């Protein structure tokens, strides 16, 4: 119970903190706006009178990109940039002294920022859907509780992966280039670039063995009705498995890393 009230206090702090950076949030959001504007138009001009491309009709294609941009705002975490700096510059020391586990603070900070980003994106998503509805009949959306569960699990998968990645800062001098390299497979295999069903077979096979598909691709495929019934629950189950794997890996790396930690700058 005491822990819960601590978590709520942390959330309050970080929500206020996120609101202070709303101008930055707005600018970051433009990347998603452009993506969900350009890619559907590129695809729409690619149909050339056909009814579907790899099982996607134009309406589903458009809705896919709007939903991927929407869910990305809440799901995909970039916390390793800040956390690695805090580890390397010794700011972590202050956190270790506080009576709350560091992971709780990270979780509260991440989810506050991501929740604000998602709320900011709602009007954009509605505007985008209205814009595209003039060109094509949109796909019906199923945003039931299975979708939201999948979104939440996706958030956790991404959170733990980014957390584990940040732990590299305990050992490596230069983490920036490693993090940059992480983005190419992440953006490709999370379904950001295109629906995974449209990719060549070998990329689809890779997508199954990496955690990225279980961040954004699964909830979006649920939302546009590509994943239903048993296969949907199987994928949600796999998301849960990835949460456990990610959490385990991150905790192990964190504990080992802390033993290395020297608290530079103290």
């Amino acid at each position, binding site marked *: 119970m005491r822990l819960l009230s601590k978590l709520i206090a942390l959330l309050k702090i970080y929500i206020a903190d996120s609101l202070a950076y709303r101008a*930055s949030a707005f600018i970051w959001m433009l990347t998603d706006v452009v993506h969900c504007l350009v890619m559907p*138009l*590129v695809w*729409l001009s690619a149909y050339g009178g056909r009814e579907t491309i790899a099982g996607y009709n134009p309406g589903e294609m458009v809705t896919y990109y709007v939903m991927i941009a929407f869910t990305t705002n809440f799901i995909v975490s970039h916390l390793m940039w800040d956390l690695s700096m805090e580890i390397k510059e010794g700011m972590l020391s202050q956190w270790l002294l506080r009576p709350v586990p560091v992971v709780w603070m990270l979780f509260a900070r991440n989810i506050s920022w991501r929740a604000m980003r998602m709320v900011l994106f709602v009007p954009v998503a509605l505007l985008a859907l209205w814009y595209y509805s003039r060109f094509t009949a949109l796909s019906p959306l199923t945003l039931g509780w299975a979708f939201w569960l999948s979104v939440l699990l996706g958030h956790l998968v991404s959170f733990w992966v980014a957390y584990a990645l940040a732990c590299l800062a305990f050992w490596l001098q230069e983490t920036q*280039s490693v993090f940059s390299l992480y983005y190419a497979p992440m953006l490709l295999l999370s379904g950001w670039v295109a629906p995974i069903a449209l990719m060549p077979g070998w990329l689809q096979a890779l997508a199954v063995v990496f955690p990225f598909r279980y961040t954004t691709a699964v909830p979006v495929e649920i939302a546009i009705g590509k994943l239903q019934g048993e296969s949907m629950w199987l994928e949600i189950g796999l998301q849960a498995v990835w949460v456990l794997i990610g959490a385990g890996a991150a905790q192990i790396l964190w504990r080992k890393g802390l033993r290395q930690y020297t608290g530079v700058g103290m």
Partner: protein
Amino acid sequence: MRRLGFYWRLYKAFIRASFVREMEFRANFWAKMLYNALWLGFFLATLKIIFRHTDSIAGWSESEALMLAATLYFIDALISTLFYFGLSDLPTLVRQGTLDFVLFKPVDSQFWLSLRRINLDQLGSLVVAVLLGVYALFQLDYTPSLLNVALYFGMVLTGVLIFYSFHFMMMTLSIWLVRVENLWVLSDVFAQIGRFPTDVFDRVLRRVFTYVLPVAFLATIPTQALLGKASAGFLWFAVAWAVGFFVMGRVFWKFALRSYTSASS
């Protein structure tokens, strides 16, 4: 004329200093080269995924779209080599108040901010972009006339001038938006729109991306000039727009400086 000689000597000093700086971090240099190559590969993969399912997007074949991508990466690499990193320091200078030292120097502040850092690790990207362009032309089985090649490089220069001016204006915003740390994202978004032919947009957006936010001049129009698909009158317009955009950037900077309050002093 003596003024010009002074600026030329200054620029040579910038080149020397950048070269020395680069040699100090040689491991980083190769990492960045690899990183640039990976991003190009990433975008080519995107194109491949699209053209697995179609022969053309908005009238552009795969090879033509590849030529467009090569053009954008060429312009992008040129900008990154010459201006990008120097300009991207501007928000930090504003936040720390060290812009004062720049303004005190007996040098034009735009010149100093824009040209001080030459980024040599982008030279690899320049070479790759040229090779990619040549490959695309072979795929197209198209030999452009000398006139088209000349027009192409002319248009590439207008693209560079437009992208430069846009980035400069976005960085200038930091005079007011002191706390916003990601203004550079705005320029990335600008280039992000230009990676596909602007023909994919509907009429309204196409006009917006030609006349208001001139993204079309980054890659679409140079590529059309090379493929002999652009009208001569329009090319003159592109030159006028680029010069206009440059002047706008300069006027905007002078205007912004009037609001500069110097954070530290």
